Structures are given as structure tokens and as C-alpha cells.
């Protein structure tokens, strides 16, 4: 069992994780195993969902009805299905994990997209007996589209195929081929038995032929910050801070979360869209001014000249500007009840900027089983396609493949106000 050392916990990093797969793949058992082995679930929570009454302690994941632990809504427990994302938290001495546990069923793709959009890594569950299923491919395609840096394939229930190396390798090779077609940068396949615990937190004795790390070791060693640090500096302005108090009558601070890159005091910066240039005077925080700030810090900048800059605008380094586009091509995962169709009007919210948009064309709909690009008149809920939007005002954006923050937007239905689409900029 992993214990928390209080001196170390101060320094640990955050890893956002998403798990996909159906209950039948042993997802609940795997999550339960991770929670129990890392102390991510408390005893009273576990006792409340144990299968046998009367036990004082919960010794193993097998004793727990884990779906009862993770299915937090009455409707889910009634129907025995997972409807919505559940967030789970666990930590090791090296890392804290935020795990979005997503429903596997096709009709809940929208909730899977919710859980996956911020993830640094995904665990895709496969039942070793069944191999790569159509659902596995659908999940993997969406995860690849969302640009999740690390995909981990957990080939589970190896105990039910006699821990057979060839079975594992066939699944691994098929997943490698499928992912290679989609530009997945890092794919790791791990054979395991979540029920027995083999290769989850400990190696076990049954799969000595596998030389890679256990799942938990893998999660602890993945690189967290992908490439945001090396991307050009982007600060979408959230708010302008003007206290107008006696002490600070003329103070103007530009508040925002750094989307990518680094900014230093004295840096030359350019305001988009005004084009005005000035230099950074101070990087203000409650804990004192900083010399340098980086993504994803939330900061306040003051500037040496009064320039035109407000919410929805962006501060960047001159010479490294984003596209400023009124026509944007994007991959869209549609999550609205009403289908998307050409000429429909929506609002796009991109960073801190909300603009009116019209669907200019549906370039294609992606068949997520064959990956073919099909002609289409509309995108229905849970469908994915490439859409060209015409905008009333420009978006200041980068391709999603380079920047997940300045390359993403949500589509809002102006009548219901609901979020109906997830957009990822291809070209602007």
C-alpha cells in the first residue's frame, strides 16, 4: 500500500487522466483496484458498497461492488449503467491524479468528451478475451482527435486467457496500427489482471514475459506538461483589473490564465487585435510580483503603455502571433440534441472570446469505424466531422494539434444556451 509522505506531497505534480471502456471490460474493478491500492477511497465509502455485509475492513477490490462506488446518481444505480462522468482522485508519493471515469456507451459520447478534453493521459480498457472491439476504436478515435498526449491500453482479464503472451501481442499490434493512422504520439499497451491486481500497482507472478512498467509506474512517469511550455506565449485576457481605489487610482491590470509559453518582465508584447505593442511592466500576484510566468498560471500583467486591450483580446509576443481568422475549419464532435446543419447559426466560445458563427459547410463526416470521410448534410449527436465556420468577428487561434487551449472552442446553441459542440481548429 502506498502511503502519503507529507513532506513529499507538497512537491507532487498533477496528472489528469481519463478512463474509457465498458463495465464488462473490468473498468470498475480496475478503478477500484487503483483507489484501494493508493488509498483513494475511504473505508466508510468502501464499506458502504461492499458485497457482503458485516465486514469490518475491506481487504480487496473483489469484495466491493465498485460500480456502486463510482455510479453516484440514483438513476445510474437503478439502471446499472454509467450515465455521466465521475471524477475520482488518488495520489502516490510522486503524483496526484484526477481521473475522469467516463461512460462507455455510445449515447454518452458527449460525456466522454467532457471527461477527456483536459486529460494528459487516457486508459483504454480492453477485455483480452474479446480483443479490439468497434467501441474500442470509437473511443480511441475520439481520444486521438482530442489530442490526448498519452494513450495507455490496459489489456485486462489476462488471467482468463492463461496470461498468454501471443493474445496480448495481437491486441497490441492491432492498436499500434490503428493509432499510427491517427497520429497518436505515445501508445503504451500493458497486459494486466485488475481483479488479481497483476500489473496494476504490483507486477504479480504471471506475466514475466512483459518487460514494461506496471500501470501505476507508467502513470507516475508520464511526462505531464506536454509541449505548452515550448509553444509561443498566449494570454487570453479574462478581465481588466481597475481597482480605482485611493491607493491604486490609475492601476490597470490584465488578468488571465496563460494558455501557453512564458512571459517575462520587460518582454515586448503585442495586443491582438489592436496590434498595439508595449512591454511588460509587472507580473502581479497576491504573493508578490514575479519575474517570469508560464502556462497554466493565472496571473495579472501590468504594461508600460496604455493600450487598447480588453476581455476577449489576447497578449502575445510580436512575431509569434496566432491566426486571426473569420473562416475556421475545425473538427467538431457534435453533442447537441438537434443536429448541426449548413447555414445554422451558433455562438462559438474560444478562450475568453465569444463570437457569432454560421456553418458554411460540412466538409465531411468521419466514419469512426472505418475512419473514412463521408459526405453529409448534417451532424447528429455523437457524430464527428470537419466543419467550416464563417465568423462575424475573428478568432485568434492556433491549430489544435499545436495548442489545445487556443485551438479549441465550444459551440453554443443561441436558443437553448446549451453547449452543443466541441470544436478543434484544423486550419484558420
Amino acid at each position, binding site marked *: 500500500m502506498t*502511503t502519503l*509522505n*507529507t513532506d513529499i*506531497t*507538497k*512537491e*507532487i*505534480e*498533477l496528472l489528469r487522466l481519463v478512463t474509457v471502456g465498458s463495465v464488462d471490460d473490468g473498468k470498475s474493478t480496475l478503478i477500484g483496484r487503483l483507489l484501494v491500492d493508493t488509498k483513494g477511497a*475511504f*473505508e*466508510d465509502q468502501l464499506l458502504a458498497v461492499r458485497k457482503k455485509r458485516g465486514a469490518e475492513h475491506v481487504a480487496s477490490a473483489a469484495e466491493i461492488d465498485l460500480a456502486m462506488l463510482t455510479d*453516484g*446518481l440514483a*438513476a445510474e444505480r437503478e439502471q446499472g449503467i454509467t450515465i455521466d*462522468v*465521475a*471524477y475520482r*482522485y488518488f495520489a502516490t508519493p510522486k503524483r*496526484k491524479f484526477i481521473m475522469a471515469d467516463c461512460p462507455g456507451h455510445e449515447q454518452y459520447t458527449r460525456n466522454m*468528451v*467532457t471527461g477527456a*478534453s*483536459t486529460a494528459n493521459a487516457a486508459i483504454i480498457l480492453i477485455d483480452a478475451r474479446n480483443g479490439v472491439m468497434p467501441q474500442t476504436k470509437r473511443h480511441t478515435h475520439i481520444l486521438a482527435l482530442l489530442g490526448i*498526449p498519452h494513450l495507455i491500453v490496459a489489456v485486462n482479464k489476462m488471467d482468463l486467457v492463461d496470461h498468454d503472451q501471443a493474445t496480448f501481442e495481437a491486441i497490441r499490434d492491432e492498436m499500434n496500427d490503428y*493509432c499510427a493512422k491517427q497520429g497518436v*504520439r*505515445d*501508445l*503504451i*499497451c500493458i497486459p494486466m489482471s485488475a481483479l488479481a491486481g497483476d500489473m496494476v500497482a504490483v507486477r504479480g507472478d504471471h506475466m514475466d514475459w512483459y518487460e514494461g512498467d506496471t500501470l501505476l509506474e507508467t502513470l507516475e512517469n508520464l*511526462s*505531464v506538461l506536454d*509541449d*505548452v511550455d515550448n509553444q509561443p506565449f498566449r494570454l487570453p485576457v*479574462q478581465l481588466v*483589473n*481597475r481597482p480605482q*481605489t485611493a*491607493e*491604486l487610482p490609475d*492601476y490597470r*491590470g490584465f488578468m488571465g*490564465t496563460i494558455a501557453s509559453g512564458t512571459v517575462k518582465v520587460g518582454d515586448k508584447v503585442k495586443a491582438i487585435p489592436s496590434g498595439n505593442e508595449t512591454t511588460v511592466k509587472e507580473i*502581479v500576484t*497576491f504573493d508578490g510580483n514575479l519575474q517570469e510566468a*508560464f*502556462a*497554466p*498560471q*493565472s496571473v495579472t500583467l501590468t504594461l508600460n503603455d496604455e493600450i487598447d486591450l480588453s476581455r476577449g483580446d489576447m497578449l502575445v509576443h510580436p512575431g509569434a502571433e496566432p491566426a486571426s481568422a473569420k473562416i475556421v475549419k475545425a473538427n467538431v464532435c457534435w*453533442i447537441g440534441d438537434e443536429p448541426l446543419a449548413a447555414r445554422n447559426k451558433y455562438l462559438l466560445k474560444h478562450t475568453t472570446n465569444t463570437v457569432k458563427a454560421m456553418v458554411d459547410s460540412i466538409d465531411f463526416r468521419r466514419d469512426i469505424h472505418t475512419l473514412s470521410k463521408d459526405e453529409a448534410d448534417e451532424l447528429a449527436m455523437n457524430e464527428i466531422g470537419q466543419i467550416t465556420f464563417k465568423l462575424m468577428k475573428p478568432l485568434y487561434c492556433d491549430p489544435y494539434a499545436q495548442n*489545445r*487551449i487556443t485551438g*479549441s472552442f*465550444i459551440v*453554443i446553441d443561441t436558443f437553448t*444556451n*446549451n*453547449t452543443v459542440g466541441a470544436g478543434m481548429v484544423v486550419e484558420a
Partner: protein
Amino acid sequence: MSNQQSKQVSQHKLTQLKALEAESIHIIREVVAEFRNPVMLYSVGKDSSVLLHLARKAFYPAPLPFPLLHVDTGFKFKEMYEFRDSFCKEIGADLIVRRNEAAIAKGMNPKDHGVARCCGALKTQGLLDALEEGEYDAAFGGARRDEERSRAKERVFSMRDEFGQWDPKNQRPELWNIYNGRIHEGESVRVFPISNWTEMDIWLYIREENIPIVPLYFAKERLMVERKHLLIPYYEEMKDQLLEGEEPKMVMSRFRTLGCSPCTGAVRSDATNMDEIVIEAAAARRSERETRIIDHGSNSMEDKKKEGYF
């Protein structure tokens, strides 16, 4: 494609607490940018204390751009009232206190009317009335997803209809760090900026940032009554509420979570400072909500949330 990890090492890294802090500040600022009249619910507990600290950081050097709202049941610990008043004064916060006076006048209490009815009247109805009176379109709360299984399912921006109710089966998808703050007339949102914090994170952050908290969180010899599995603090006024066989006695104890005095249990503890609390939290085998009577009973939190409770 291979099993190796190919990333170059990034120069800049945030600790997980600083990453959580940045995320929370982003959320708080986004609400202020997009809503007409936000308010921050302030319960005086440790989570509220962290939330308030984050809000102060978000707008520094400006003062808080929204008021704090304490929905008081009249049953809070006296140390909580003292702390609330002195701390809000010290930081110059605009504190609004609201109570369901009609129910309080009728003598609503958990012993005679049951915990569910009492909470429904003093907390849920008190909150809904206060939100309606203030015409707030967004209310920040310090709920965390690790607290309870229905909270594990809640969005950061949680939509409420004109009756303040939550529809868990029909939540808005929440993508990246882009929050959709568009609502219809009469609707509102509850916003949970510390959704992704765990109890451990809260304690580590309070320690790291030296955030003042109610002294009840630190262990001390206190007069207690043992009721079922709970340690309940004893006050003189409770004399005629004692059940058969109950005898107040001094116990070295503290609170992991603070609610109303009749319904919040303490734990036996020797943790008198933040380091010891952190060590105790790390070793805890039971969740903090175990000491809250309100959570016991099937679906109770989800049902209460549907009605408008936090």
C-alpha cells in the same frame, strides 16, 4: 510507435497545488467576467476559507468584486460566528448573513423535526430565499467532488432552474477550460471552483498558505457527548436535549468538517497544529463526511441537491 516516452523535459513545472490554484482562479475570474451579479457562499468552514483565499488572490490588488453570503441556521458553533465576524472585518469583505427567520421563529430543530426537514428549511430554503432576494445569477460554493458520490458527478458550472433545482441527468458538457455561462432569465448557476481539490489538498494548501481557520479544527480537550458513533460537542443550552444515558465528558478532539452543532461530530485527535492535521489527514481511513449526520441515509445528498441544496 513504441512503449517509450518521447517528451522533452519541460523547464517549468507547477506543483499540483499550484496547478489547482491556477485552475480555481481561472474559474472565479470567468464567473465575474460573464455574470451580472455573483455572490460567494461562505460557510466559515475550511473549504470556504480556501475558496475565499483563492478569490482574494484572483483579484489582487483589487478588493473582492462580490459579497460573501452566509446562510446561517442559528445552530453554528459559537467559535464559527466569532471567526466569521473578525475575519471578514480584517479582510474588508462585504458579508451578508441571511437566516430563514420564519422557520427559526417556529423553533425548527433537528431533534424534534428530523435532520432532513431541519436542513431543508434552514439550509436549502434559507439559501434559495437569500439567492432570490439578492437576485444573484451565480453563486460560488466550496463543494468538492471527492466528498460524496453525487458530488463526484457535478460540473464546475452547475445549472439551476428557476426553482434552484439540479437536474443531474441533463448536465451541460464541460470542455477544456471553456465554461458556458449563458443562462435564461430566472436560471442561475452554482459554481464550484475547488471541485478538483481533495480533503488532503485543502489541508496542504491551508498549511502552505497560512490560511486562518476556525480553531475548532485543532485538537483540544473539549466537553463532548457520545451519540451512536459520533462525538458531539456539549453546550450548556443542550442540557434538556441529552438522550438517556448520555453524559458529557472531556475528550481530546477536533473537527474534520464543520456544520451545525447538533449534527456535526468531532473526532478523537491529538493534532494541535497544521503539520499534525496533515499527517492525520494522510493516515485517515474514513471520509470526513462520516461525521456529518446529514449524509447518512440513502441518496440523501443527491436528493437534497436536486431540491436546491449545495
